[in-house]
């Protein structure tokens, strides 16, 4: 899989896609977009990068295990939900405040949580599949027939 074209473009595409995913995440505030689609795009970027560079480098670049990213995302989403409850409103009610002229609130925090969960879960599965295929190609695992 690791051709020159893929390696060169993979890095570039990864960077662009990750940036674009952040745009998508923030855009979801008022327009189509949001945490889920942003997370998918980000995961896709990382996977394309890893196809060129190998999943080991992708994992090293991430620094955090994908599953831990997912767990952190779940925690962030829970905090977003709980903060409304602590303010005496029903769970998941949006709390808003104005920072420098723009509205910031718990829904965006929740979206960030979704974003992280999607990245974590998708990467955990895709990288595992990729490494699995890699082991077969390298002949490390025998295929019975």
């Amino acid at each position, binding site marked *: 899989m690791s051709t020159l074209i893929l390696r060169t473009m993979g890095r570039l595409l990864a960077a662009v896609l990750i940036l674009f995913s952040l745009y998508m995440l923030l855009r979801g505030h008022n327009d189509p977009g949001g945490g889920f689609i942003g997370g998918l795009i980000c995961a896709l970027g990382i996977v394309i990068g890893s196809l060129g560079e190998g999943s080991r480098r992708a994992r090293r670049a991430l620094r955090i*295990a994908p*599953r*831990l990213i997912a*767990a*952190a995302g*779940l*925690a962030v989403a*829970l905090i977003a*939900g*709980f903060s*409304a*409850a602590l303010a005496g*409103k*029903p*769970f*998941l*009610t*949006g709390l808003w405040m104005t920072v420098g002229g723009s509205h910031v609130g718990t829904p965006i925090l929740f979206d960030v949580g979704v974003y992280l969960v999607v990245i974590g879960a998708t990467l955990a599965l895709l990288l595992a599949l990729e490494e699995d295929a890699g082991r077969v190609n390298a002949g490390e695992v025998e295929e019975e027939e």
Partner: protein
Amino acid sequence: MSAAWLLFLPIALPFAGAVLAFIAGRAGDRRAPQWVNVGTTALMTLVSLLLLSAVWRDGPQAIQMGGWAAPFGITLVADILGAVMVVITALSGLAVAVYAMADIDEGRAKLGWHALYLVLLAGVTGAFLTGDLFNLYVWFEVMLIASFCLLVLGGDKAQLDGGLRYVALNLVATVMFLMAIGLLYGLTGTLNMADLHVTLKTVDAPGLVTTIAVLFLGAFGIKSAVFPLFFWLPASYHVPPVAVSAIFAALLTKVGVYALIRLFTLVFTADVDYTHGILLVIAGATMVTGVLGAAAQNQVRKILSFHIISQIGYMVMGLALYTPLALLGAVFYLVHHIIVKANLFLVGGVAKRITGSFELDRIGGLYKAKPWLAVLFLIPALSLAGIPPLSGFWAKLVLIEASLEVEAWVIAGVALVVGLLTVFSMSKIWLEAFWKPHPDGDAAVGAVALTRGETVALVAPIVLLASITVIIGLAPQPFLDLAARSAQELLAPEAYVRVVLGGLP
């Protein structure tokens, strides 16, 4: 604590616990996730008991998630049935979590077993507490994904194979569920169950409503493993670790039964003769096939799996008869069954630990070696068969009385005969595993010694569940009162509807 807290904590707690267990597993001591698991389920038990007492005192409770009023937002609502189910979920969850401390190996724990387990519990309680059909679908999926991962985690051959059987058929069920939701929304424009109760009365399309009802029946039928849709259950429940089998046996099919009870008392009551007629036939067939399937098996967990199916028949029978007494029986049976079934799987697991196998021809001599285990087996086993004075006796008695009341002689006869056959299966396990000597001689029993900590973790939950069975059996009145209130609410859901649609609290 306010009702708002009590309603969402049973769902939010296990999610928070899952995150904590996962992070603790990464960062800290390898035993940390276990303790997080036990602590979370213990807290859940406490909160759910508070919820039940609040519902008992003040009637059904509801909150609107995110402050969006019903029927537009998602409503969490607890009536007696919902609250009781949450209590039982938390209790059995706690028992199995303790058991898992000695049952789940380090490899599985490292892969996040405890976190997945808590997510599964969150899915189950979510399904019991939601007041919205689509939200129910989402909880079913949460449950499906978590249970599927638990089933294949650690992945030996049999587990992967069983996982495929499980997930393929359950996928079909969720797809049917979604289809039914789509059609129902197209027909009524709402998915809030209380709102549906009101709206469906004004819809003049009886044929279409019945079609949708039967689609739901199919979807939940697969989930609750009724005849003829049960094939996934005995094909997969015997492959994972005992703790997984036990929690699946206790809760998963019962969520399907709960959904059936909820929908066919609150939403689809227009053509009771037709829908509940089907249910009654299904109930009878489920009881018979389940118990006969069990008689043909020779492996402890497979016998118990088939008995889940036959017991589901009793609960569906209670729903199908659709009288106050029958529904009382169904609710009582649900509670009794969850505790007994989880316990039997746990005892089976201990027996395997001591004798080395689940195959009945390979084991024996347990009575001589561990008489206390024999007693702990007999309590849930006899209760399952309906021997007085244990919980199963009252459950069966109420149901049979209800069927005699409406002169449904056939189903009453079936229920009695199936009870007898259950005794046969239980005595088979008793004779083979406990009474006859071990085929490899007495020395083979207890060849693998358990440490003291392991013994406590394995036996304490069994003792807890067995004592609940005995308590229900000896003092059934408070539990019958609870079930009676619940049946009353189910047949006259005005209070439930009012509290959901009454706007913001």
